[in-house]
């Protein structure tokens, strides 16, 4: 049982001479449930690592509170929190063997020798450090990056801590190892049934690993939700732009009523994209008649009209094809309307020779999101 409750957490670094103070985390509140895999994600400098380090006890808390299973731990030393951390650069002790690296924390806690051996060997087996080669007596220098990563995981696992903290643990691996280790982490989480807090700037890691994602920017929490909800219902423009690749298309326009229809008209051009809303969306936009809004549409929700048997004429517009990027399983088509650059993900294996042509594209408006242009909040 390990539940971490964070309330109104704040971290301010005093500025150097003549510089203003730097706020790293501003009023973060969230709860990490028992056995949950929670991922903190955001661009560099967003405060995610600082938050994790405050949970670990490596960073002082300016104000706010962190409770572990109901106990206030603001002033508890890291060693007394019973949390294990996997560092970005693994932080293996270079002068100790793999075995001692993993056993060290247990030795310090005066765990009996037999227990230590058993726990280290179990973890080593789980992580493949015994087969095909027994790595336990090697020094970290003699290991590959992937192996070091496993030892770092093992060092945390043998602790049987209340919760695991991960600080961008995959960022030093090559692309192939990263994918493999990612899957392995998922497997580990299920096997250990432990609480895990994971920091990354990589949205794919966040999406694939998390039970819930906390998106941060500029020291503030932007959204806390399960991965698919973050993807499909981003709380604001920042989340919409940060999660998803290629990024969500955004079009600024105005809402008008024409008879019983609600029309979205692209702004800033004589030949605007015009989209006719229906159903729930029309009812939502009716409240904003005459106002400016931002339409967000994921690239996979834009289709080449020729690929559709019955394209909706109210959701179809003309755009010129600028660039065509085949990425294998699909093709990214860069479009230019008169005022915006858009991307469509279309399922063609071969790029067509459409560059420079003006074609018809159809939006799947049932998946469209709308944002307030001033606050960026979702409508």
């Amino acid at each position, binding site marked *: 049982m390990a539940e971490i409750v964070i309330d109104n957490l704040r971290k301010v670094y005093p500025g150097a001479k003549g510089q203003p103070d730097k706020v790293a985390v501003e009023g973060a509140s969230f709860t990490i449930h028992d056995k949950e895999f929670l991922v903190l994600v955001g661009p560099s400098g967003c405060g995610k690592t600082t938050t994790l380090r405050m949970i*670990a*006890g*490596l960073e002082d808390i300016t104000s706010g509170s962190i409770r572990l299973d109901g106990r206030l731990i603001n002033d508890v*030393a*890291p*060693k007394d929190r019973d*949390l*294990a*951390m996997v*560092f*970005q*650069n*693994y*932080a*293996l*002790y*270079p*002068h100790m063997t793999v075995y001692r690296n993993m056993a*060290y*924390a247990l030795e*310090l*806690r005066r765990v009996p020798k037999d227990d230590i051996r058993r726990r280290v060997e179990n973890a080593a087996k789980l992580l493949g450090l015994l087969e095909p080669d027994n790595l336990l007596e090697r020094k970290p220098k003699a290991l590959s990056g992937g192996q070091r990563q496993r030892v770092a995981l093992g*060092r945390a696992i043998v*602790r049987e801590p209340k919760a695991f903290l991960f600080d961008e643990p995959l960022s030093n691996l090559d692309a192939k190892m990263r994918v493999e280790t990612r899957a392995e982490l998922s497997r580990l989480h299920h096997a250990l049934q432990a609480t895990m807090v994971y920091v990354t700037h990589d949205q794919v890691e966040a999406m694939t690993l998390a039970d819930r994602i906390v998106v941060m920017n500029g020291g503030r929490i932007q959204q806390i939700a399960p991965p698919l909800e973050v993807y499909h219902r981003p709380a604001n423009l920042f989340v919409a732009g940060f999660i998803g690749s290629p990024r969500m298309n955004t079009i600024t326009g105005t809402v008008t009523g024409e008879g019983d229809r609600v029309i979205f008209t692209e702004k800033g051009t004589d030949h605007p994209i015009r989209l006719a809303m229906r159903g729930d969306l029309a009812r939502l936009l009716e409240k904003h008649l005459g106002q400016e809004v931002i339409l967000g549409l994921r690239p996979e929700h834009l289709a080449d009209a020729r690929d559709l048997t019955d394209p909706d004429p109210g959701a179809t517009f003309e755009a010129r094809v600028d660039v065509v990027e085949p990425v294998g399983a699909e093709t990214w088509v860069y479009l230019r309307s008169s005022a915006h650059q858009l991307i469509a993900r279309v399922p063609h294996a071969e790029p067509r020779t459409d560059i420079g042509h003006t074609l018809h594209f159809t939006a799947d408006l049932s998946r469209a999101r709308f944002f307030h242009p001033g606050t960026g909040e979702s409508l």
Partner: protein
Amino acid sequence: MPDADPIARHRNRWFAVILLVGFSIVFFLPFAWMVSTSLKPLNETMSLPPRWLPSEPQWQNYPDAMRAMGPFWLYARNSLMLALLNVVGTVASSALVAYGFSRIEWRGRDSVFLLLLATMMIPFPVVMVPVYTLFRELGWIGTFKPLWVPAFLAGAFNVFLLRQFFLSIPKDLTEAARMDGCGEFRIFWQIILPLAKPALLTVALFQFMATWNDFLGPLIFLVRQEQFTLALGLQNFQSVQGGTAWHWLMAASTLVVLPVVFLFFLTQRTFIRGISTTGFK
């Protein structure tokens, strides 16, 4: 600086070789002269024009010089004992202090460290009078204590050197140790010290040399001849016999240099690296 023009490059390289060889001769000659003189009979040291080499090497000069100096082996023992005590004291205390200045973040640390750097501007002659009277109050004049106790109070330069090295050890490691359950002293002892061995060796070497070479300290703090260090004993010998027995003086000088040179060849790489890093902040 390689030159693109092959002819210029060739010319420059030859020029460099000639200068290197020339300077090498100039820098090496004093050594050669010292050893050569130390092996000459007394009359050949004074011959005009000077002889480059002894007619026959007088190896006997060495034991003779040692006897003429007085209790040579006692001097050597004193020097060695002081050097070792200083090495132990400096390495232990400077490492502790350097840890306090690099791995623990406490309020005011950087200002205090600046103060430490500033003390490097205060050489011993500036403070030697009150230091002497202080040690006199303690009844330490005429004992070895003034020459080794201060070593246990950390030297600014060594602290600076070790701090730079400690700062280069990834912060992750100490944080991992903290998560694993280490207190500060254990991190210092079990993580930082084992990783800092090269830097500790450098400090040990520098301190050994410094103590072995020290002259002013023994000159003012030591009183009785049987406590003299080699440096002081040799100076005593020089001033007593008034600069005539050059073959013995050279033999004795060679004997004082020899351990230093030996130590250098034993630890050349650590040594050069240690000095190289001192120039960079």
